């Protein structure tokens, strides 16, 4: 199967989990052209972990700016027709790209394909067939995009609390008429950190989402104003 794709991993102090993330990409039944690790100013051994692999893993380093800026920096290096992303603490299952690529070949107008995922605890080995809920994971970990269409959307912007950048980007992509779908199959595993935000939502960090949805409302208003103006002219 010929399917040429790059993978972008934004990584900040991810030395403990990055090795496993990269190995899960190298185990794909459809191998990547390149794995671009963007070290977002880590103070741990993140860069060394990435460099230890050698090709096809390459390292991009920048001062700490946020996951959005790091993802954008990675996208800027992509030369393949498709680009996938992976959060540095999650892992893919081996047929992830193969299954998603089939979806693209069946639907030439698609821009993005996501997938279901299961979760695993911080220090456990991912067990994809263990009982437990499946999640519809519209996140960086499952995202596979057509590169050309993705470039039309522009940069991934960072928001307060370093959350919401993907919601914002996908919202802007949809506004361009891009279609994203989810493959109804578990193709990734998401790490859950014990004690992180346990049983509650971190409302201070959630401010990023508020800013992102406010911008979505503003864009809706602007589009509505355009439509109204067109109506007046006619």
């Amino acid at each position, binding site marked *: 199967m010929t399917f040429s794709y790059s993978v972008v991993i934004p990584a900040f102090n991810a030395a403990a989990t990055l090795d496993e993330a990269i190995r899960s990409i190298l185990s794909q039944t459809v191998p990547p052209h390149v794995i671009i690790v963007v070290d977002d100013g880590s103070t741990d051994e993140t860069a060394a972990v990435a460099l230890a692999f050698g090709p096809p893993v390459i390292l991009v380093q920048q001062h700490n700016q946020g996951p959005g800026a790091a993802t954008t920096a990675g996208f800027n290096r992509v030369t393949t027709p498709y680009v996938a992303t992976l959060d540095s603490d999650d892992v893919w299952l081996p047929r992830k790209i193969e299954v998603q690529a089939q979806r693209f070949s069946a639907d030439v107008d698609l821009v993005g394909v996501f997938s279901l995922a299961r*979760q695993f*605890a911080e220090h456990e080995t991912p067990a994809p067939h263990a009982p437990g*809920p499946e*999640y*519809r*994971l*519209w*996140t960086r970990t499952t995202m596979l995009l057509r590169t050309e269409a993705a470039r039309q959307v522009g940069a991934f912007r960072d928001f307060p609390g370093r*959350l*919401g950048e*993907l*919601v914002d980007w*996908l*919202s802007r992509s*949809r506004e361009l008429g891009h279609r994203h779908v989810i493959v109804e199959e578990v193709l990734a595993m998401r790490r*859950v*950190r*014990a*004690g*992180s*935000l*346990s*049983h*509650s*939502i*971190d*409302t201070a*960090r*959630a*401010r990023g*989402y*508020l*800013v992102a*949805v*406010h911008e*979505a*409302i503003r864009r*809706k208003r602007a589009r509505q104003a355009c439509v109204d103006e067109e109506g007046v002219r006619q």
Partner: protein
Amino acid sequence: MPVEPNVYELNAPDVVSETFDGQAVILNLATGHYYSLGGIAGPLWNLLIGRHTTDAILASVAAQQPHLVQQASALVAQLLSFGLIQESQQPSSQAAIDVSWTNAPPTIEAFEDLAELIAADPVHDVDLEAGWPVLRPQP
């Protein structure tokens, strides 16, 4: 202690809200639904989540824009039905209401277009026992 009637508060922690340049935006993180408030709904919302009693708020509206009282009252019911506010166990605010009510009727617009994206994002990263909010099945 009995709950004081007509005192509400933000339905935290699921619901978050902020006013951007006079535009109040509300987001329910549990559902991914978000809301935009227009007209006098913005200042009314901020008084509500500041635990002013609805009686006091509506009296203030009535003093300046009597024709909007009914719509203001209906908005409170709508905010409750959307689960954005809840009855407060705390005493009501005794601060004076100092709002210049315009004659723009209160409006609330609800958006669901980003619901699944917001509900899947990492803010919901809770522990394994609690799980993430299990996403609702597709309609």
